[in-house]
């Protein structure tokens, strides 16, 4: 009667997360174009209706899951995943008793070839976030969406929202038209620093360059696994262009880019710098020091080495106990559950930092659970 038993990794019961949880990567979406149009001036509404979104959409490989979403993240009312606050409350905020969640809408404003339209789209997105997400839900904070390929327009958008406590970050996407250290992007950093807002750099993007450094691959899995290449290029560029010498208080958050690659990249940069620093004389410290001081990292997706001790070594190499921040990536298909995200058990003090305290400090979030 009983089937033959194999050595098995059995299904486990869900554990309550004992520490507070702050989720640093949640994606909200417009329920429909009608909602977007409420926030878009008539001139740009017409543009959206007649011309639509236009950018370099190199990343549109068919995802394993529709909308790249969890199959169970489609609200019963038929709206797209991430577009229904009540459903998000039930499935994410309440289900996991999140203390805070940071919204990162990936709605394409920054990738628009028409920069004025991108700016209008960014402004509409931010107005909508404030009115329909942050104001009704005290657990949510939002990232400021900016048309980052025009840094003057982007800086205007940061000025518009930078003083509002509902916005805690400026959102850029990993694949920009040029590496982010280039001077064309500096006004964005200047505005962010003025308001003491971190710059979040999120997976994805449409800068026109190929998905990987070797060109465009065939499959979504290559896109998904290849994205750290873009993050690495951004880290190298931000360090080597001297951005952190020019903006010593600038904070960068790498979101959904993984992190196992960061220690060896820092080692390599240090080694190159010792031999080639004449080329970048304004760098007064080793690249690894800038990285350690200026970069924060979110956990999802986490590289999972085959042995638990490798993961512990990785955390040690990363030397980022104060920099690693938990993220679910809800409602996307590679969502990480707060109680099961880590391949090893973490020491309680470190777990508290990663699950909430690092994000609380960076985003200046007052405690909600006493």
């Amino acid at each position, binding site marked *: *009667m*009983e*089937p033959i038993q*194999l*050595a*098995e*990794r*059995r*299904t*486990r*019961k*869900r554990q309550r997360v004992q520490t507070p949880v702050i989720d640093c990567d949640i994606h909200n979406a417009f329920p429909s174009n009608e909602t977007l149009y409420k926030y878009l001036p008539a001139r740009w509404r017409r543009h959206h209706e007649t011309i639509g979104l236009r950018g370099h959409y190199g990343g549109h490989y068919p995802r*394993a*899951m529709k909308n790249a979403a*969890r*199959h*169970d*993240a489609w609200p019963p009312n038929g709206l797209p995943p991430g577009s229904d606050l009540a459903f998000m409350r039930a499935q994410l905020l309440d289900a996991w008793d999140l203390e805070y969640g940071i919204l990162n809408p990936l709605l394409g404003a920054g990738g628009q070839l028409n920069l004025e339209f991108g700016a209008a789209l960014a402004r509409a997105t931010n107005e909508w976030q404030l009115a329909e997400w942050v104001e009704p839900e005290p657990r949510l904070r939002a990232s400021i969406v900016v048309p980052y390929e025009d840094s003057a327009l982007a800086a205007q958008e940061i000025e518009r929202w930078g003083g509002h406590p509902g916005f805690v970050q400026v959102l850029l996407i990993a694949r920009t038209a040029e590496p982010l250290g280039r001077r064309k992007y500096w006004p964005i950093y200047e505005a962010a620093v003025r308001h003491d807002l971190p710059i979040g750099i999120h997976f994805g993007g449409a800068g026109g360059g190929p998905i990987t450094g070797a060109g465009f691959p065939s499959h979504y899995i290559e896109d998904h696994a290849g994205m750290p290449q873009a993050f690495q290029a951004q880290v190298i560029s931000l360090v080597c262009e001297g951005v952190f010498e020019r903006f010593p208080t600038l904070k960068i958050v790498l979101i959904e880019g993984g992190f196992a690659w960061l220690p060896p990249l820092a080692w390599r940069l240090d080694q190159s710098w010792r031999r080639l620093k004449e080329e970048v004389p304004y760098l007064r410290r080793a690249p690894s020091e800038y990285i350690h001081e200026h970069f924060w990292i979110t956990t999802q997706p986490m590289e999972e080495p085959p042995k638990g001790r490798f993961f512990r070594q990785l955390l040690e190499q990363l030397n980022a106990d104060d920099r690693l921040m938990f993220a679910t990536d809800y409602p996307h*298909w*590679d*969502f*990480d*559950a707060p*109680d*099961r*995200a880590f391949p090893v058990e973490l020491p309680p003090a470190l777990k508290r930092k990663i699950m909430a305290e690092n994000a609380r400090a960076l985003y200046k979030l007052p405690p909600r659970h006493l």
Partner: protein
Amino acid sequence: MARYVVATVDEIPPGGRKIVEVAGRSIGVFNIGGEFYALRNSCPHQGGALCEGRLSGLLLATVPGEYTYSRRGEILRCPWHGWEFDVKTGQSWFDPARTRVRSYPVQVAEGKELAESQGPQKGPYVAETYEVTVERQYVLVEIP
């Protein structure tokens, strides 16, 4: 081993499923081509509601570029990360020895037989012993 009545046979048509709470656990009961199977509704990976996932087939390739689609409707994909499990056994295809989801034996019994026996415990589906329903067929899940 306790047996629980979880559904009538016609409640879960071929290709269909029903998710039930039995003995404190959530279980998905599937009908594949007239045969019934039951799995724990929790993915061994991160605990996603596995039995709410899509049923698909098994895509195989012997060399790059040649594809065979087989076992249509027998492979369950977790709604979160797409981990694939064989509905009939609970085994994964990428790590069959170590990663599997708990599966439970399922039987079909006549209502008349249930009404007369003292064996099965009542599950969430109340197997009323009125004359009308007693003639139907019921799906039973066995929980150790």
